[in-house]
């Protein structure tokens, strides 16, 4: 079986994936799978999905040749897949459009979501406003502080943002609380999971919705360069923008590189390198690499980027890692901050801190590559949401020096 044919009918990517959830949710997952499979066969759904991605989200997003970044790094030609130019400023809305259309087909009046950086929460609040559905978003209180403006955006669009004070007060705990809400209100609520994580069919379905990124990039690079790229590079928290970019290239001779958050450094224990240093386990409904201790307790992740600050990862990435089809590296908070400044300075594009991790890795590999090589970088989101946080860091550094 080729990698593109996965998952199998029970949602397994090799040993990864599956459904590890309370019985209460199993019937809803069956229903979701059924509705999704029916929608996939229905041309009207495809038309509707394309319509909203075009006229509402603003797709296709450009594939932009980053000329000055290329010159500055002095190696491979670098293209940016500009998901930052989507409505709401990140790739997340590709998935929320798809899932809100499914929610309508299931005739459920309420949606819930978890959010880390707030991008998925905003993208869910946006489509809930557009389609007139009730929406509650769970967010760790630590993240609410880091991303106060996104909290306001959600509220402005009529959603409730519910603070989660449990555990690490970040994305992991927001997901726990959203799953509990879903188990309680499953009869009239759809849970719009924001990444390629969670129980089957979410990893497959979210990947399919996000694959528009890779399909467009493939066409665009063929048009601009007349050939496929040598490498794709994207950041990985849960991994939805990376899988969306990678998936249409799985059967091609293209290097796939996922970049995780190395936080303060891999040897400090304060990192989010789930694929790099984690081990297989079950978290949030799927078998996948997980940041855990020897006794199977999930560890708290650390990254400067709230969107990468997660001790789990989508099961398909675990499969791609073990099969060797993709490679996974990591970039520290400091390297990401440098990359954040670099892209802002030489291209006039302020990237999300998540995406800055991918740029941080490009800054390492591009100079080592010949000038006729081509890299496509998934610029998953824009950095407006992070400006205040980065300002705080820089201010602090100035005080310390």
């Amino acid at each position, binding site marked *: 079986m080729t990698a593109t044919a996965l998952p199998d009918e029970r949602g397994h990517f090799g040993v990864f994936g599956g459904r590890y959830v309370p019985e209460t949710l199993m019937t809803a997952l069956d229903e979701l799978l059924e509705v999704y499979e029916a929608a996939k066969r229905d041309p009207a759904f495809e038309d509707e999905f394309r319509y909203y991605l075009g006229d509402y989200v603003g797709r296709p997003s450009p594939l932009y040749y980053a000329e000055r970044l290329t010159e500055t790094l002095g190696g491979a030609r670098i293209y940016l897949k500009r998901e930052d130019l989507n409505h709401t400023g990140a790739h997340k809305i590709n998935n929320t459009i798809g899932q809100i259309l499914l929610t309508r087909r299931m005739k459920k009046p309420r949606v819930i979501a978890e959010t880390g950086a707030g991008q998925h929460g905003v993208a869910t609040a946006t489509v809930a406003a557009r389609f007139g559905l009730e929406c509650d978003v769970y967010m760790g209180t630590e993240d609410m502080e880091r991303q106060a403006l996104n909290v306001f955006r959600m509220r402005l669009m009529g959603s409730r943002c519910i603070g989660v004070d449990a555990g690490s007060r970040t994305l*992991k705990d927001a997901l726990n609380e959203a799953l509990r809400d879903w188990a309680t209100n499953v009869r009239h609520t759809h849970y719009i999971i924001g990444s390629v994580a969670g129980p089957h069919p979410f990893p497959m379905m979210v990947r399919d919705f996000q694959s528009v990124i890779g399909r467009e990039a493939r066409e665009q690079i063929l048009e601009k360069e007349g050939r496929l790229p040598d490498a794709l590079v994207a950041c990985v928290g849960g991994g939805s923008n990376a899988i969306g970019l990678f998936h249409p290239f799985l059967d091609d001779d293209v290097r796939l590189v996922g970049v995780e958050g190395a936080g303060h450094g891999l040897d400090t224990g304060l990192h989010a390198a789930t694929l790099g240093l984690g081990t297989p386990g079950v978290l949030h409904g799927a078998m996948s690499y997980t940041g855990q201790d020897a006794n199977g307790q999930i560890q708290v992740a650390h990254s400067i980027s709230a969107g990468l600050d997660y001790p789990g990862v989508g099961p398909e990435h675990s499969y791609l890692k073990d099969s060797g089809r993709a490679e996974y590296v990591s970039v520290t908070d400091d390297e990401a901050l440098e990359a954040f400044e670099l892209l802002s300075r030489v291209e006039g594009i302020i990237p999300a801190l998540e995406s800055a991790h991918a740029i941080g890795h490009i800054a390492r590999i591009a100079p080592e590559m010949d000038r006729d090589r081509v890299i496509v970088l998934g610029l998953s989101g824009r950095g407006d949401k992070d400006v205040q946080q980065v300002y705080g860091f820089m201010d602090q550094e100035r005080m310390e020096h």
Partner: protein
Amino acid sequence: MNRIEETFASLKSADRKALVPYIMAGDPDLETTAALVVELDRRGADLVELGVPFSDPIADGPTIQRAALRALDQGTTLRDVVDTVGSIRERSEIPIVLMTYYNPVLAYGIGDFSRDAAGAGVDGLIVPDLPPEEGAELSVACRRHGLTVVFLVAPTSTTDRIELVNRHTTGFVYCVSLTGVTGARGKLADGVDEFMAQVRSHTDRPLGLGFGISSPEQANEASRLADGVIVGSAIINVMEEHAGKPDLLRLVGEYVASLRAAIDRTGIDGKTPAAAPG
């Protein structure tokens, strides 16, 4: 037949219902846990559900989440819980079922865990995030060592799923009384009698009813619908209320005795178990 099946069989022949209290292992510490199990046995429990703390308990409400955090703060591991059951076995033969999320079992190693757990005197497992579809490996290992694996049904389960659970569960069927997570509630969920009747029509196995049962009155109601009544958060609430008191064991024991008395009212009255209260 293992101890769980024996217990349900002998209760049935005596026309009595099982009382199944749940406590979190390691809350407030493992020594107290061992003493509590002995006390629960003495106060009329028929089977004890011993919670294993996990960092991300998605099926649990705030009460059991707090208990898990306290146990984790004590450094409680699955290995410690297994050892504690071993020490309990010097003082009590009450059937013990571990309620654990799947990941600690995976980290321990399914083969090693089932061997060690059976060796220590554990009788079975309930894994709330493991549906039968993903449970084959654990079930095979547990069967080899004589441990039961109890699967759950919920009010949202379809007929097909109830039958699936019936085929895979051993010991009993864990019936989740409500659509939601664990935690005390003001009353039993609406429709629980229809739900139990539906489950009953698809299985001959004993039915345990849990989630949300929070008072002697509710335990009495539940005992009319089920073969076993599982009470967790309400007991942990009592433990929280009396945390640090020297007579904690007695106070928890008295609460459990009140549940026992409430459940036994049905049997003594000789009412038919199927008759739901109005």
